[in-house]
Structure formats: C-alpha cells, structure tokens
C-alpha cells in the first residue's frame, strides 16, 4: 500500500508559498529544493534519508519517476524556502538533518550567521532582525515541528502576512547587480561618516532611482539622515535668531 500524498508537487507548493500564481519557479530555487529533498548524492547520509522520508516519497513509474509530498508535510517545503533565503542551501539541509542527528551545541546559531550572499539578501530585501531571532528561537526549540509547522517569514515588509516569502524572489529571479548596490550604499555611508551629508543623500537618492526594486535599507537610511538634517536645521534657525538679537 502506498503512502497518502498531497496532490501538488514540490514545485507547485513552492509556487504557492512564493505567491507565484501562474509563473514558473525560478530555476535556482527549483535546484535548491531538489538538492534538499530529492537529489541523491553519494554522500547522502542516514539523517538526510530520514528527513526526506518524513517529507517526500518516490513514485516509481515506467518512464516517470517522481516525488510526491506526504500528506500534511507541505510546510516542510515552506520552511526549506524560508531557510534557503536566510542561511543558504547547505545549511538548510543541515538544519533538516539535525532533526534526526542531534547537533553539536550552538550549531544552529552558527548556521544562522550570515554568509556574504546572505548579507546581501539581508541588505537588499530588508530582513527583519526580530523575525530572524524568532526563526532561531523556533529552530532551537524542541516543540517546533519543522515538518508541519511554519517558521515566520524573515521579511518584515508585510505586516498582515507573517508567512509571506515572496520578497525572496527578487533575489533569485532577476539578474540584479547586488554588489553594485551594496558598494553604492557603502559609499553613501562613508560620505555620511565624513560628515558630507549632501553627498550622502544624493548618493542614496541616485541608488534608489537606479535600483530595479525598492531597497528598504537604503530608504530607511535616507529617512534617518533627512530627519537628522531637519532637526539640525531647526536648531540652526533658532541659534541664528538668538545671535541676531542685538
């Protein structure tokens, strides 16, 4: 007797979680999910096999071997996507393995530390550090079921939907010169540190204009500077008014 499975494939569920509707799943994410849940490697260890058995089952057909998701386990796909965005593919696999082989102490927090690519995602997509802390807390808790429950989305942009992973698409879908954006942002920070506020603001504005998608970090930094500037200007006017009393 075969196990009961969901009707949708891994890609179908990924597209639902990413709010893709009719669009196809970006190939990078397709590959990432496959390497976590299906692709057999020689180094697939026991723990990998164990967690895969919790999520998918292989259907052998004459010309069409494929995988189906076990009933009620689709949230594992969601969690995998969430972790791919925040820690990358390799660490995601490790986190799933840890459900079957106890991790060394502190391993999860080590995994949650940013790689350079993650730092870019964090920078460009405005990952909320509070949400990240919550993800870490849940992963380390014994009561959290990685296969049936959902981690919160790391993105803070959508307050009404705690599980919206759609912002991560921007990173996997388009060819975007992230490194250029990062450099421009750092140049603006440097200008600000050198007390050249005007240049800093114009650099940030230029970056906002040329960027292909909104960059929350850039916008909020610009807001901070302009608020400080307005505050200082008010004080400056007051100071001048005092000096003009003669």
């Amino acid at each position, binding site marked *: 007797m075969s196990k009961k499975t969901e009707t949708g494939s891994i890609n179908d569920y990924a597209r639902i979680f990413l709010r893709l509707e009719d669009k196809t799943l970006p190939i990078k994410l397709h590959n990432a999910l496959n390497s976590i849940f299906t692709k057999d490697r020689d180094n697939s260890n026991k723990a990998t096999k164990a967690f895969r058995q919790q999520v998918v089952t292989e259907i052998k057909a004459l010309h069409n071997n494929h995988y189906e998701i076990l009933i009620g386990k689709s949230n594992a796909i969601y969690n995998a996507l969430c972790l791919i965005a925040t820690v990358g593919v390799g660490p995601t696999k490790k986190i799933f393995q840890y459900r079957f082989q106890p991790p060394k102490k502190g391993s999860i927090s080590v995994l949650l530390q940013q790689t350079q690519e993650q730092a870019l995602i964090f920078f460009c997509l405005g990952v909320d550090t509070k949400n990240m802390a919550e993800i870490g807390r849940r992963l380390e808790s014994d009561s959290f079921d990685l296969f049936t429950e959902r981690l919160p989305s790391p993105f803070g942009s959508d307050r009404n939907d705690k599980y919206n992973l759609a912002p991560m698409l921007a990173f996997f879908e388009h060819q975007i010169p992230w490194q250029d954006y990062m450099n421009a942002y750092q140049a603006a920070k440097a200008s600000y540190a050198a*007390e050249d*506020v005007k240049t800093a603001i114009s650099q940030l504005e230029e970056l906002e204009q040329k960027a292909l998608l909104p960059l929350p970090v850039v916008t909020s930094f610009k807001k901070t500077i302009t608020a*400080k*500037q307005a*505050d*200082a*200007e*008010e*004080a*400056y006017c*007051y*100071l001048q*008014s*005092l*000096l003009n*009393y*003669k």
Partner: protein
Amino acid sequence: MRILLLLTLIISFNSIAEIRVPVRCEESVAQISTTNLIFFNSTEVIKVGECVGVELVKRGVMEALPKACDEVVEHKNNLLGALSLSKKEALQIGQCMGVINYVYDRYNDEKYNTSRYDSYYSKYKSYVYQCVTGMTAVKKLASTTYSLSSRSKIRDVLCEAELGTY
C-alpha cells in the same frame, strides 16, 4: 541619554566654580553650521546653548529665555524627554542653564548695594545676594511673564538680598 542629560544638569548646577564659559564664545558659535549641528551630540549642543545664553544675558537680551527654561521643565516632567530631545530643545536647555549658572556665579554672596529706597536702618546692615540654582531657578525663569530686559532684572528674579552672616 536621560541619565546623561541629568548628569549634565547636576554637574552644571553643582560645580559652578569649575564651569567657566569662554569669555567670548560668540565668534565660534556664529561659525556653527547645520552640518555641525547634525554631528554634535546633545551634550555638545547644550554647551553651545549655555554659551549663547550667557552672551545674551550680558547684553541684557532675554526675550527667548522663559520659553527656553520652559523646555527644561517639560523635559523634567516627560519620562522619555531626553530620548526625544531635539537639537533645538538641547540649545534651549543649555541656554537656560547657562544663564542660571552665570547669575549664580556673578551675584551669589556678592554684596548688596543699598539703594536710596531702602530704609535708613538697613543701610547699616550688610546684605548679600543669595541666588537659587537648579530646578527652582529654572521654574522661576520659566514662569516669568514680565520682560527681562536687563541683567539686574534677571538677578532680581533669581537672587534675594539677605542679611550677611559676617
């Protein structure tokens, strides 16, 4: 921040002997730009305010003083006051404190010059000024409604002539 501000208040009010505002800080203050103000922290802005306050009191220009001291009172009452301290408010706080310290420095324990309106008797006693500091002084200045148009007027708000002990 709040602790910092309170510390500044306490230090400025208590160590009056140490605090000497530059003789003429006006020139340097006139050079301060908006950009400078962005990067000054609250303590530095308060210092600028002190300096300007003293300059103005020396010239007997105190139109803005009651309002400035009002700001100190408001911040004392507001729990989050120092956290939300704007640069203008920091200037006002400095201005108020600078004036109070200056008046104390200048008049406290100084001999009271009897005027011709004083009674005959009092002319043979030695009177000295006793000036208030701290929040008492701040509140007095904040609630002043008549115009403070000269140094002696502000002295009369903050100081009283009392019988000297010697």
